[in-house]
């Protein structure tokens, strides 16, 4: 992973403190704490049901925590507790400073409107109103994610899976967010399509100095994209550290199992 402009800034962007979430008697997420710095990519790994997607929803304010809190440093430099943000403020954050890349692009895109409108919509939401500029910017972003601009007026339902995912990324990045949440962004794609997407994500993340929290069960994705990993099991973070450290020198029995379960290509 390129460490461009990395981590000289000493103020965290997002801080989670003792986050927990229970659904009835089931504890989906237990006592999770960490800090994320600008430009830092954190991977959350673990098997299905380990609580990683719940954690992502807690961190992005889509789900209320049973205990603990998340604070985020806004563009004005003031850290705010997400639970105290009003609904309008939270939505504004989601449209501007944050991105959310879903595993299923249909969840993050409007499938029936054109690709250009999918990207342009985010710009309009932050007050852009000049049609020509919106279209130029949308077209520029399609190029950056390697979509032929001849397809700008086509709806994503006519796109392949890999193109849809790249369009979803363009839609998220067009407002220049500082933090992007990603939930299994390469899940369900062919291996060759996956490699291209990963390579694209890797260069965009470094170029735009994005902070990313990425949930994945694929350790190769974590290795390629992230600086740091948290390994989750049964709702708890059982091991955390530099990505290469955790993957090359895993300590916990479960992490050793995960690492040793990878089939060599």
């Amino acid at each position, binding site marked *: 992973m*390129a*460490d*461009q402009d*990395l*981590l*000289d800034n000493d103020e965290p962007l997002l801080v989670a403190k003792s986050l927990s979430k229970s659904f009835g008697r089931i504890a989906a997420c237990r006592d999770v704490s960490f800090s994320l*710095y600008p430009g*830092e990519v954190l991977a959350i790994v673990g098997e299905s049901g380990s609580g990683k997607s719940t954690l992502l929803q807690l961190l992005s304010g889509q789900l209320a925590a049973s205990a603990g809190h998340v604070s985020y440093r806004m563009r004005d430099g003031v850290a705010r507790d997400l639970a105290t943000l009003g609904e309008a403020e939270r939505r504004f954050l989601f449209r501007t400073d944050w991105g959310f890349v879903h595993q299923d692009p249909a969840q993050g895109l409007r499938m029936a409107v054109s690709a250009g409108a999918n990207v342009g919509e985010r710009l309009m939401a932050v007050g852009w109103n000049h049609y020509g500029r919106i279209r130029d910017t949308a077209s520029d972003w399609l190029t950056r994610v390697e979509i032929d601009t001849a397809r700008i007026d086509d709806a994503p339902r006519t796109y392949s899976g890999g193109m849809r995912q790249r369009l979803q990324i363009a839609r998220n990045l067009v407002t220049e967010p500082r933090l992007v949440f990603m939930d299994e962004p390469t899940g369900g794609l062919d291996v060759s399509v996956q*490699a*291209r997407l*990963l*390579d694209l994500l*890797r260069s965009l993340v470094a170029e735009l100095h994005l902070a990313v929290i990425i949930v994945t069960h694929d350790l190769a994705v974590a290795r*390629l994209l992230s*600086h*740091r990993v948290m390994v989750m099991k049964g709702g708890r973070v059982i091991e955390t*550290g*530099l990505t*290469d*450290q955790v993957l*090359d*020198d895993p*300590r*916990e*029995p479960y992490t*050793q*199992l995960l690492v*040793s379960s990878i089939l060599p290509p």
Partner: protein
Amino acid sequence: MTAMIDVTDAKKTFTMHLQGGIELPVVSGVTFHVDPGECVVLSGPSGAGKSSILKMIFGNYRCDSGRIGIRHRGAVIDLASAEPRQVLNVRRSTIGYVSQFLRAVPRVATIDVVAEPLIVNGIGRPDAQARAGELLHRLNIPERLWQLPPATFSGGEQQRVNIARGFISDLPILLLDEPTASLDAANRSVVVELVAEKKRQGVAMVAIVHDDEIRHLIADRIVDVTSFAAAA
């Protein structure tokens, strides 16, 4: 203390939980230092823990105990207890690692693979590529390959790309894990020259080299790793 690397009483054990929790002692009591402009070669048979020590110095393997003192931007930082962010900063501006194998990134051209460490440290792309080209030239990678990703290159070519990437930086510490392993005589001597140039620039190096001839050519001092054999 002017040493660039100062390792004191470092210890490493692997606990294999999947094999019933057996403990594999790797090394203990690892103590040595490396001064600027000096190349220390670790010697010992396979399995003695040479690569593990190199990985401990790079922060890739965690230490059970002991200290890995690294001179980083004028201050000494203990990598054995540093935060992940500090380790990343040390790797960005202080320690480079040249492994035997290139971890190829799909689709990135060879010239950019080599230039990347300079670009990350703020050097402009044209300058970085010019220096990358010079090194690739010296290491006999033909110019027609420079725009191709190295993934399809032969093992020896990939290794030379990796060496170019490792030696291009201006980092004050370099760790070399068998940099000459599968090279022919001409390219081995290029690596020997590169090491000599780094010494003149005051770079501190720790190397693992199996070839006796190369070892004599680059080593200022030899540290025998068998003396750090962990008691089983």
